[in-house]
């Protein structure tokens, strides 16, 4: 039962800021990350490892794209859609980007209303985030279908140019889409906890004895914003480059 003591001392001692603060925090013989709940710190460390995974994919993509002597398919044309007789370049990807950014916005507001203990608003914002995420995955499924069925893109080759285009594309967007899908599932789980009042009654969650708090909404939010963050990089270096 050291929990009350930990929270109790949290706000008592004045903490130095800046570089001095880093030294003080790390050498304080307590937890290093003050004011950060353990779940949030663990999520950050997971996201750090995920950063390395996605960066490895993107750097491999750079390597194969620079080293191929065959022309790279032009993403602007490959991902164009014909709407109302006009061929608009990259429009599907642009819409997907706006959808994911909007879901990040609703997520940030869900975290905010969670800390205000506004159960209903938090629930609806989480649900909106999940719906936007599901829309994103749906559009990605459409994009994959179009590429595989109509354009004949395969991981080992395609009619438009360098064979590495397909392998990079399916690997990077597939891994990102998997992250979004997992996020949607967890958003629905967290939303259910919120609307049931689990977090207000501090009911312990699935597979843990720790009390439920609205901090889990922020931890969920970190994951979701990270998915959006990865998309920012994919959009820039894969689709726009």
């Amino acid at each position, binding site marked *: 039962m050291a929990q009350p003591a*930990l929270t109790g001392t949290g706000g008592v001692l004045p903490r130095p800021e800046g570089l001095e603060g880093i030294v003080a925090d790390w050498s304080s013989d307590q937890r290093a990350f003050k*004011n950060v709940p353990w779940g949030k710190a663990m999520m950050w460390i997971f996201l750090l490892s995920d950063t390395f995974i996605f960066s490895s994919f993107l750097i491999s993509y750079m390597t194969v794209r620079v*080293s191929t002597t065959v022309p*790279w398919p032009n993403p602007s044309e490959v991902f164009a859609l014909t709407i109302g007789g006009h061929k608009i370049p990259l429009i599907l990807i642009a819409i997907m980007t706006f959808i994911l950014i909007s879901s990040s916005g609703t997520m*940030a507001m869900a975290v905010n209303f969670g*800390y205000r203990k506004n159960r209903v608003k938090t629930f609806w914002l989480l649900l909106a985030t999940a719906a936007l995420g599901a829309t994103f995955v749906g559009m990605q499924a459409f994009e994959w279908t179009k590429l595989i069925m109509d354009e004949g893109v395969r991981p080992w080759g395609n009619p438009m140019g360098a064979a590495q285009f397909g392998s990079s594309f399916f690997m990077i967007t597939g891994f990102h889409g998997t992250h979004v899908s997992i996020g949607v599932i967890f958003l629905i789980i967290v939303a259910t906890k919120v609307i049931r009042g689990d977090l207000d009654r501090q009911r312990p969650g699935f597979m843990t004895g720790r009390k439920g708090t609205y901090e889990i909404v922020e931890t969920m939010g970190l994951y979701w914003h990270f998915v959006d963050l990865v998309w920012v990089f994919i959009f820039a270096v894969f689709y726009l480059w």
Partner: protein
Amino acid sequence: MAHAEGHQPQPVGQQPSPTGQRAHVEGQQHPIGIYLKIWGLLFVLSTASYLVDYFHIQGYLRWFLILTFMLMKAGLIVAIFMHMLWERLAIVYAILVPPLLLLVLLGIGALEADYTFLTRGEFFGGGSAAPTHGPAHPGPVQHR
């Protein structure tokens, strides 16, 4: 740690002091307006980066604009949406400094890719090892 509790014994299950509890539980509290502003800004930046493609801006200007908009968006998401702006430096540095190592991997990848490209051009003669392709490009090169 636990010895701090010894100075002020409390019955188990009772609420700790309200100030300590508040500082711990309330977490990141910010006005809702800032999220809406950042949301709007991200929309503007995304539109701008889409327009770079729409108007077929090419060459170094394209690289520069794409990377600038990308880094601005990433910065806004991490700083505001993920609350890094308000965290203590201990966690900010613990999370944001290690990814800088990736620049080493990026450099190795670029060097190796350039070398492979030149070797392929030399031995397979697929494409001329073009003079437009300098040896030290930091990123993917357009072959159109």
